[in-house]
């Protein structure tokens, strides 16, 4: 099993279970013991996951990745000490960010639901052939990436969150926008497209949206 096997869903699972930090260690970049260089896949996943965390209001610094070899014991110890300190400083997950526990769970659940879709998008639009950490940094902080992220993922994530809310009980547009911190017009847009796809229906009598 390679670092590249470390899945977005694993990281989300750890946060869902209340981990305050997740740290991934891979072999040194470009020094793959095999021919796979899967650690670049892990690096890409980490960048994407950080962006998702940021989007749902979690501090992306809670997710970390480092590359080192089995011979670098001293480096490993230093890095682990640093990380221990850093995670302590970041404080408890959710609370430090001012998100209540229930909302946090719902947000992480919404992202988790989206994982299959994110995999498709990642392969089609976000896979990059770069071979250095710097190039990854540049790409994932670029306007181009931001644009793709907004275009491909943001709306889907909002809808995913709405669906999870509606699974519990029917809600009005205003209520949804309050809970998710979106503008009512954004929510309306999502509700329109979702009802067109037959995912939700409008309950006239209760003036609420419910799952179809």
């Amino acid at each position, binding site marked *: 099993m390679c670092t590249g096997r470390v899945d977005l869903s694993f990281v989300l699972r750890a946060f869902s279970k209340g981990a305050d930090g997740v740290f991934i260690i891979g072999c040194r970049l470009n020094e793959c013991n*095999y021919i796979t260089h899967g650690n670049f896949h892990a690096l890409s996943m980490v960048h994407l996951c950080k962006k998702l965390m940021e989007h749902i209001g979690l501090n992306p610094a809670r997710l970390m990745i480092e590359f080192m070899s089995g011979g670098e014991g001293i480096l490993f110890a230093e890095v682990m000490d640093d990380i221990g300190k850093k995670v302590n400083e970041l404080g408890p997950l959710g609370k430090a960010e001012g998100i209540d526990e229930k909302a946090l769970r719902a947000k992480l659940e919404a992202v988790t639901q989206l994982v299959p879709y994110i*995999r498709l998008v990642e392969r089609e639009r976000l896979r990059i052939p770069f071979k250095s950490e710097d190039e990854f940094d540049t790409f994932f902080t670029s306007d181009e990436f931001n644009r793709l992220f907004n275009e491909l993922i943001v709306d889907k994530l909002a809808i995913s969150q709405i669906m999870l809310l509606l699974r519990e009980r029917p809600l009005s547009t205003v209520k949804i926008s309050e809970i998710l911190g979106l503008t009512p017009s954004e929510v309306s847009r999502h509700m329109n497209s979702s009802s067109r796809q037959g995912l939700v229906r409008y309950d006239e009598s209760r003036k609420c949206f419910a799952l179809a």
Partner: protein
Amino acid sequence: MGRHPNIEVLTYTEVDSVEGEAGDFKVTLIKKPRYIIESKCTGCTTCVEYCPVKYPDQYNQEISDNKAVHVYFAQAIPLITYIDESCLYLKEKKCRICEAVCKNNAIDFNQKLEKVEVNVGAIILSSGLEPFDPKVKEEYRYGQFVNVVTSMDYERLLCATGPYQGEILRASDMKHPHKVAWLQCVGSRRVTPGENSYCSAVCCTYTQKQVILTKEHDAEAECTVFHNDIRSYGKDFERFYERAENLPGVRFFRSYVSIVKENPETQSVTIRYSTPDEGVKEEEFDMVVLSVGLNPPADVQGLANKFGIELNAHGFCKAIPSNPMETTRPGIFVSGAFQGPTDIPESVFTASAAGSQCGELLDYRRGELSKERIYPPERDVSQEEPRIGVFVCHCGANIGRIVGVPSTVEYALTLPNVVYAQEQLFSCATNSAQQISDLTKEKGLNRVVIAACSPRTLEPLFRDTLREAGINQYYLDMANIREHCSWVHAKEKEEATQKAKDIIRMSVARVCRLKPLQEFDLPVNKTALVVGGGIAGMTCALSIAKQGHEVYLVEKDADLGGTARRIHSTLDGMDVQAYLRDLVRKIYQHPLIHVYTDATIPEATGYVGNFVTKVKSDRGVTEIKHGAAVIAIGADEYKPTEYLYGKDDRVMTNLELEEQIAQGEERVMNAQSLVMIQCVGCRNEDRNYCARICCSNSVKNALKLKEINPRMDITILFRDMRTYGFSEDYYREASNKDVKFIRYEPQDKPQVEAVEEEGRRILRVTVTDYILGKKLAIDADLLSLAAAVIPSAGNKEMSLLFKVSLGPDDWFKEAHVKLRPVEFGTDGVYLCGIAHYPKHIPEAINQAYGAAGRVLTLLSHDTVTASGSVCEVDEDKCISCGACITVCTYGAIEFYDTPQGRKATVNPVLCKGDGLCNSVCPTAAISLKHFADEELLSQIDAAVGDF
């Protein structure tokens, strides 16, 4: 090895005599009484606890004490006790406490010396070496100053199973030394009586290792190494040297030293040394480590007489360069350091190489005596509730002294589905493994967690243990509470114990989810393909063919021979061209070897035991089916861009000079003055490695020239002369014959200009002489550059074809630098010669036979077993998007047509189990068995707990 059905291990046994001849030796062995009945002893060491006799521990260099009855060392095979001559009963007929406390009645004082006769076809001498004893020279003050220790003593001090459990302590005050000095070349490179003239070849690098480990023990430690040349000539050693040198508080001084005095109060030791800037200085150190060299094994003459073999002038086994594994007595081979000073990878080459030569000798009756392991039938437990057994290992004191093992056992019993838990001293000991399999049967366990060390080394053993118990071997999980816990949390016992519990909880969670997996047997095609027809490739091909296997030998050039065609002699006088002619003739004459010259390989597919490779030559394209492949494609010579090379025809490379010497070129024969510059094109930023062979080659050329024209002025400009091993004698000879050696620093390289003076065209070489402390100008007729050996341009292509990897300098990367140096991570593909790293001809021959030995291990079997932990596709979920196919670098996944449409399918033999496909599959249709989502998620859940 202790568990191999075809290996019988006889410890505490000596060879008495050897009669007979190759193919039929009668060896008389003397089995010394260990006073322990091997079959009854469980290795519990209760007897050791109660034994009243304290005796200096031989294994720990007599630094700490052991008992009269003891286990020799923590990983001994067999892991049982023996009683040595310090025993009170053996000396004075009293005590016998051990007999009383042994619950298994394993002690037997009536054991007598036993003579055993064995009949064997061949013998391999791997008698190893003896560290140099510095007591023979008073000036080392060993045994006189208590804080002067040898590197062997220090090695034990550093070790977790050492005299102070891995703490470095001074014998004088049991305190940690803060300032430590290493003195290099103790017993080596010295012609004074009692010492050795050769270079021991391993000390520079082991000292660097000790420095790095010392800094890991104590980041503030000050480490100083006093050395002559630094000989880090092995693969990746240059980087290792840099790493050690650049650590804070580490100094390397090039200076001879003397040990002056001991501080009467602190017992610290004063050393006198010289510096280029400040002259002679004295400095006090808390501890001084003598980096002792390697001597031949103890009583080597007795050994030689017993086996009827000859020794060389240094007392090591006399070997011929064209086959360093051969002794002077047919049928007796040699491997390891008895050949001469060698490090681990070389010892492994020669071990496998000696094995291959035994194979050549005895192939006609291969397999006649072999036994196979028979396992009980596997019980189907897939429908049962998990019943988990947890075994927590003390690893002697490695785990037990940090982690509260009993409390982890108690904790394990509280975990869901755990029905049994216990502690063990060494879970890996034969008797402990037996206990695990017995208890598994007795308690009806269907899953096992071993909380011990890394699965990397011992997982195969414990899987085997489960098979012995009739349980699928994949129902095992190892909780690594040693490397991941006790070794790194030595100072936090409580937290370490908590962490061990967490790790065990995770393992228990995972083991519940594990599925029984089947490994399967694949047929093995008995043919080998050898790529590269140089000395390594040919030697390897011939050894394989001599053991009855067909070999296809593919060479890109028109002729066989490789780089060796340009080499005429070796330092020890081997006639390379004559040897080469003979080897080529043997290759062409062998009926099982098919040679393709002027050939390329457009395509290679398949997997271990079943490769298909296309070879394109003037015979067209041939498709070869083979079970094993050997990569021996050699290396290239660096074409210098410096020192006027290519601009002035008087500047040449070492290889060009050698050719011109062989041809008797007049301008070379008649030159008045010749300069050689070492380290051209390597040991720099672009190529951060030492090309290993150039120093000896320069000395070889210099000696040749001096023989032809004793009046020729020869100057060698070097950084470190790396004439390691026995080559040191030739370096000394050159120096005695007035070849001048001048050291230069990399930041102040020699300057070369072509000038004309008094009608004579000369090359003026300017260099700073650090001993004289001034610039020298040498007027030379010719300049020879020790141009680096560089990786072949074809390496990249070959690595893609055979799916093998290259290291940071583009040399082929072996599966493990030390332990598996002739094979690749890709099964069925092997490596030898200078494609692996630069090496001398005898070394390439060692490795070539070594690769042949590994190839035979594969080809001599009818089947090979493939792992059960590979990917599989759930076709109902597969949407044939192809994401998995794109991401698989091994080409293990392809589409195939089903009635439900196109679906992905995995070739389990090609799958390496990296699992990248799992994280890209949008429908979770593909799953890596043994590392499936639910197995890993259950571990994450167990690690984090709940909100």
